[in-house]
């Protein structure tokens, strides 16, 4: 028996291979999160500086009308985006689950928007929604002279165009999640419910959908963090306009930090966004990791 204490290549190689990734993650994710948090407590303007002012940046942030507008836009966008995506995704998944022909092809078609970058989605929808070249123009050219669809230039309605584009992009993905959930349900449950006398509608509303709670939860989490972090879609679609009518926290953060020389307040808004995401994610991760299997 010769067990040497010398640690050979077998011992060091995995650590060696992983260390660059770990270093990068620690510095560029956690390091910068901490740096941002530190900056949010300073008087930084264009460049970072370290004169600490406590929560003053946060106080200024929540006194700022543009920030409050951005938060309320996020609320409208987030609620509608998540709700409509869940409904559309669920309906599509249930329809696709009826043993239809060419299901694979249809699934791919619905899933494809997810493969596009939000920038592309935003640009395409910008053209479609543009009153002078898009849908409105098309309807008028068909002879419907009075047709008006100018939400994108209407400050009251512009936020809803973002909902439309966002739903178009993400609902196929939600459908795929729900479809996977539906496929996981034992078909004999449906048969049993039929024998019990339940109509197809009540099979879904009383048994299948309630038993997909974990799936709803996962979909909600994914949509929620897309909504909170949404930036590129809005930049491409409306650029935050008209005026500030489609401002959201991510745009606010970008503009204040890098365009208006308000690095401290930008950092404060970034930390508020991080806290919002964490407020949603932490309970989720907690429940996912804590509860064992819950069939």
């Amino acid at each position: 028996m010769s067990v040497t204490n010398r640690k050979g290549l077998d011992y060091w190689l995995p650590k060696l291979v992983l260390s660059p990734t770990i270093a990068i993650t620690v510095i560029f994710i956690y390091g910068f999160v901490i740096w941002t948090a530190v900056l949010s407590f300073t008087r930084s303007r264009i460049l970072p500086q370290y004169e600490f002012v406590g929560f003053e940046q946060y106080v200024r942030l929540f006194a700022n009308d543009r920030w409050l507008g951005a938060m309320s836009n996020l609320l409208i966008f987030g609620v509608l985006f998540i709700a409509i995506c869940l409904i559309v995704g669920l309906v599509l998944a249930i329809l696709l689950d009826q043993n239809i022909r060419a299901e694979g092809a249809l699934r791919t078609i619905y899933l494809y928007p997810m493969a596009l970058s939000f920038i592309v989605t935003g640009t395409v929808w910008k053209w479609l929604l543009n009153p002078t070249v898009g849908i409105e123009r098309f309807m008028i050219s068909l002879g419907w002279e009075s047709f008006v669809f100018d939400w994108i230039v209407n400050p009251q309605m512009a936020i809803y165009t973002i909902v439309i584009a966002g739903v178009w992009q993400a609902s196929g993905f939600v459908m795929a999640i729900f479809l996977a959930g539906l496929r996981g349900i034992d078909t004999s449950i449906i048969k049993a419910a039929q024998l019990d006398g339940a109509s197809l509608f009540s099979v879904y509303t009383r048994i299948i959908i309630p038993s997909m709670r974990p799936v709803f939860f996962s979909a909600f989490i994914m949509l929620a963090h897309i909504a909170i972090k949404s930036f590129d879609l809005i930049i491409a679609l409306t650029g935050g306009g008209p005026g500030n009518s489609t401002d959201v926290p991510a745009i606010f953060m970008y503009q204040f930090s890098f365009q208006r020389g308000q690095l401290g307040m930008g950092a404060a808004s970034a930390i508020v966004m991080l806290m919002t995401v964490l407020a949603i994610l932490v309970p989720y991760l907690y429940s996912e990791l804590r509860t064992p299997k819950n069939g």
Partner: protein
Amino acid sequence: MAELKIENVNKSFGETHILKGINLDIPDGEFVILVGPSGCGKSTLLNCVAGLEEVTSGAIRLGDKDMTRVAPKDRDIAMVFQSYALYPNMNVYKNIAFGLEIRKMPKAEIQAEVSRVAKLLQIEHMLDRKPSQLSGGQRQRVAMGRALARRPQIYLFDEPLSNLDAKLRVEMRTEMKKLHQRLATTIVYVTHDQIEAMTLADRIAVMKDGIVQQFGTPQEVYDDPANIFVAGFMGSPSMNFLECEVSRVDDGFAVEVVSEAQSYLLPVDPNQADLSGYEGKRVILGIRPEQITHVMPHVAEQPFVTKVTVKIEVVEPTGADTLVLARINDQECECRVHPTESGQPGEMMDMLFNMSKAVFFDPKTEDRL
């Protein structure tokens, strides 16, 4: 309660013909088991009776009503599935009550019915648990409870015990039999396990390739199999099939077997088969392992018993008996002997072939002679 008539039922999925003219008459209160290898169409037939699959042609009658085109929920049938198919989001109480709620039964009656069923199946203490918190055996009971609660005319069971471990399966088997004796309702039960079929059934329908090969009581199916398939499928270890030549002896017939270059003539019981057309031809002798035993004086004196010396190839002790594999007519042949009488592999051993229950098959059609 009603009798179930399955009349000339055919079922095809596209080009594949699954059920080929099934006819079964199941009287009220009978426990019928459909048994066969996987892919024989037994589950499809059960689904057709339940209405979950539409029959391609033929009729399904319940009592005097034609149910062929009736929706599953209006057939007054309850089914227990292999996977139990409990509703995962509902607790046990809700699972049992669901069918009653859908049928708009008043709340108080539902409550009474659920507690009756729960008491019957001894699941009262777990009414507020979710299916995920139950063991396999408990889920099985809940699934049965759900079927019992509706008091249907017929119960259908689709391999209900196959997901349980061996010990629990035997327990539930006994319980299922007790339950049937108490309820006396018609039950159609699908299984691939021939022991389950033998122990539970009033009558067994042995199926293969979408055709009912034989429909009879367990003893009939065991002793008088209609063809080689039924003979081989029922019974474990399965029947020995030895191809041998028929010859005429004194006042009857005998078949010739060869063991270790020694030839023996086994007399044929005329009650078992009339081999008059087969003199000089080859037939397949079907003889169960328990009819080939070690030498016992009281058996040796019986008619149609012959002593054959065989060479032991393999010995398989099962505890109660030991199975001895020998080579006869250059085919494997299993014999069942008392553990203390068994020799070692390679040794010679005397065996008594009791032909009073032997059966014979045509080598071409594989049908019983």
